[in-house]
């Protein structure tokens, strides 16, 4: 197991190195940089001014030098300066991480706490009206674009309570905090909950047909014990895989949700930074997201062994 972990960690480093190269090159392959955008907005280009600014920002250096400057800084904890705000990138990124982390955590929690039980219920009551209703709901969850759902929630909120959850970094009450985080988390987690439900359902259906389930029933185990103790424990493995993947995909949904609910998290910030070609912000944020995704996958792999004793990671 130890050797496996070491190997996985080494592989993670190689993956992150590959990602850093890809991000760096892709950003520079895309036409236009911050200087083009600044001068485009101004509509006035003095080539000398433009060249000066490119030099000042380090964009006139060869791409390899730029890459090693970035990686060198990164290894020393220096993420560079945002081209737009001219503040240290770390200072720009750090305060936004907890906001998105709270939102993502709540969305995943919502997804698991709704998706898994409803998936079990749907499987146990297969073919009933309840099952059909839940399947229709889950299909809607998969089909509704999250920006549309978010807007619907906002419109309903304005129309029903005359207010809407506008982000406030220091919510005064629990209700306000709930509205600020939980409502958007539900909006973004709805799709994920639907997917979790469908995976749980199909996995449960497969497990419920196994011989050992029949044996458990024959031994007089209660329905609850059969469903939740014997079946769900074995059905949950693919669900964990899906939740792990969803955690990675969540960032896509969060971009839209943070925009619609006006939450100043990293997802929306990333899009803005991309729009401005603010390389130090984009590079470091994407690297951060990549680290989260790679680490989540690593944890999911370790969870397999913890949940299913049949899985052993040998040397």
């Amino acid at each position, binding site marked *: 197991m130890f050797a496996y972990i070491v190997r996985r960690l080494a592989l993670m480093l190689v993956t992150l190195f590959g990602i850093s190269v890809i991000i760096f090159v892709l950003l520079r392959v895309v036409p*236009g*940089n911050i200087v083009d955008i600044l001068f485009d907005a*101004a509509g006035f280009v003095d080539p000398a001014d433009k060249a*000066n600014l490119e030099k000042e920002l380090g964009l006139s250096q060869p791409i390899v030098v730029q890459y090693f400057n970035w990686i060198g800084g990164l290894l020393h904890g220096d993420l560079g300066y945002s081209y737009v705000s*001219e503040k240290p990138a770390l200072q720009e990124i750090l305060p936004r991480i907890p906001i998105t982390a709270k939102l993502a955590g709540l969305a995943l929690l919502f997804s698991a706490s709704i998706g898994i039980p409803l998936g079990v219920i749907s499987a146990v009551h297969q073919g009933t009206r309840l099952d059909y209703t839940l399947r229709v709901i889950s299909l809607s969850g998969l089909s509704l674009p999250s920006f549309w759902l978010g807007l619907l929630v906002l419109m309903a909120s304005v129309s029903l309570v005359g207010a*809407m959850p506008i982000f406030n970094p220091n919510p005064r009450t629990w209700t306000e905090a709930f509205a600020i985080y939980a409502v958007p988390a539900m909006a973004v987690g709805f799709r994920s909950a639907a997917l979790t439900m469908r995976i749980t359902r199909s996995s449960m259906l497969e497990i419920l047909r196994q011989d050992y389930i029949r044996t458990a029933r024959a031994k007089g185990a209660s329905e609850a014990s059969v469903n939740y103790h014997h079946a769900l424990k074995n059905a949950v493995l693919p669900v964990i895989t899906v939740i792990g993947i969803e955690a990675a995909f969540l960032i896509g949904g969060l971009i839209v949700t943070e*925009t619609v609910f*006006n939450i100043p998290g990293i997802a929306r910030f990333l899009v*803005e930074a991309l*729009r401005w070609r603010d390389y130090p912000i984009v590079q470091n944020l994407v690297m951060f997201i990549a680290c989260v995704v790679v680490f989540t996958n690593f944890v999911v792999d370790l969870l397999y062994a913890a949940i299913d004793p049949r899985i052993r990671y040998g040397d």
Partner: protein
Amino acid sequence: MRTVHAFGVAALVMLALPDPTFAGEGKSGGILRMYHRDSPGSASIHEGATYSINVPFMPVFNNLVIFDQHIAQNSVETLRPELAESWAWSADGKTLTFKLRKDVKWHDGKPFTSADVKCTFDMVMGKSPQKFRQNPRKSWYDEVNDVTVNGDYEASFNLKRPQPALLSLLASGYTPVYPCHVSPAEMRTRPVGTGPFKFVEFKANESIKLTKNPDYWKKGLPYLDGIEFTIIPNRSTAILGFISGQFDITFPTEVTIPLLKDVKSQAPNAVCVVEPNNVSTNIIVNSSNPPFDNLDIRRALALALDRKAFIQIQFEGQADIGGTMLPAPSGLWAMPKEMLESIPGYGPDVAKNREEARKLMQKAGYGPDKHLAIKISTRNIPIYRDPAIILIDQIKSIYIDAELDVVDTAQWFPKVARKDYSLGLNLTGNAVDDPDQSFYENYSCGSERNYTGYCNKEIEKLFDQQSQETDVNKRKKLVWEIDKKLQEDVARPIIFHSRTGTCWQPYVKNITIMSNSSYNGFRYEDVWMDK
């Protein structure tokens, strides 16, 4: 000392004004909550070219002179003193001298002096060792030789030739006075001004906060304790926030005509106004390369436009048809209607115009069996894309099959600059309703914003002639002549001048939306809330 002979019109206007008593009937207190449409790139007005910077940061500063903040139509008659107590033109019209106020302090406590005026304009003119990152309005001061000071409280602009429009340019929201002792880099992130509100913080993509300047030199002002801008790029979310009462005012001139109906139906008490914003939607034509190097094809294009259809579709009829200058009654320099309608393509009979356009196309070798295939390039933003689509539909009628080529903002200017387009759908905003700003910037030979590269030396002479003309009526006639010629030359066919809405809650008082510029009306020093 230089003898100052004559006071200009503006100074006369000043004399007619009562002694300024600043505080009026307003109630003090409260934070004005406004949403902001996007995160401005910086806090430095001089380095920006979008009113996204002017709206939140104009309250931090003062100008030498400013357009009256409660008269919607900016003009020479509405110029008011700010950091300058008075101003005077020399007899030859080549020196503009300002007497400065002595009781003004920067927000950091340092005194404001003439050195700050010189520093600011030296930097804008590119003559200072300190440089801006970008300097988009350097060309406004092409006719200024230098700025000189006489003691701490007098500054003069020395011109190469008379330019009466200089005062209007100095009154724009784009022309604040910066402190000498603060670097341009600091001004981009933590601006220091003399204005009614002090900068507190700017969190990119999140918020901008300003607080009352208790030592403001206009005693009793500002009324508000502060202004908070919440940055909400999503228009639906922002409007819902306003409707639910979480904002006191929408971002100025950002409510579209169709959206205005929603606001009025869901927030019936809201006060909403619709005004022209002096932004024209126009076509940039690449006349350096085929097929638009052919004047007949350019003329056919101009004749094919059904401007009313654009306005009906996009603005439910609420926009204006005109030439380069903003149409009347809001615009000060617009051609008379009869003159405008005499320009090819502006006549009311669209069918007849298009028939003529088809003849020109046939003369150029195109017809029902041989269509001209082109691309129409435009930025990937709805206000650009939408009219481009209508344009594609309209020019089908003259045998032109166009395909939409949407271009990312980062690539738009480089693409236009290297003339990598046939036709482009473009928007041109004018900060000051004055021909000097518009003509030199967009149509003079070699100007960086003259995207099409249009160059007509004869017209250029007329630009200079009108610029020096001190008689307003004579200047107007020259401007009309120039504008007509520009349209006839299909230099940059103007499709329409848009109008947009602004709404605020009924308890917000003293808001005036300017009707011939969306860059100059955001000082907010005497805005108050009746709550």
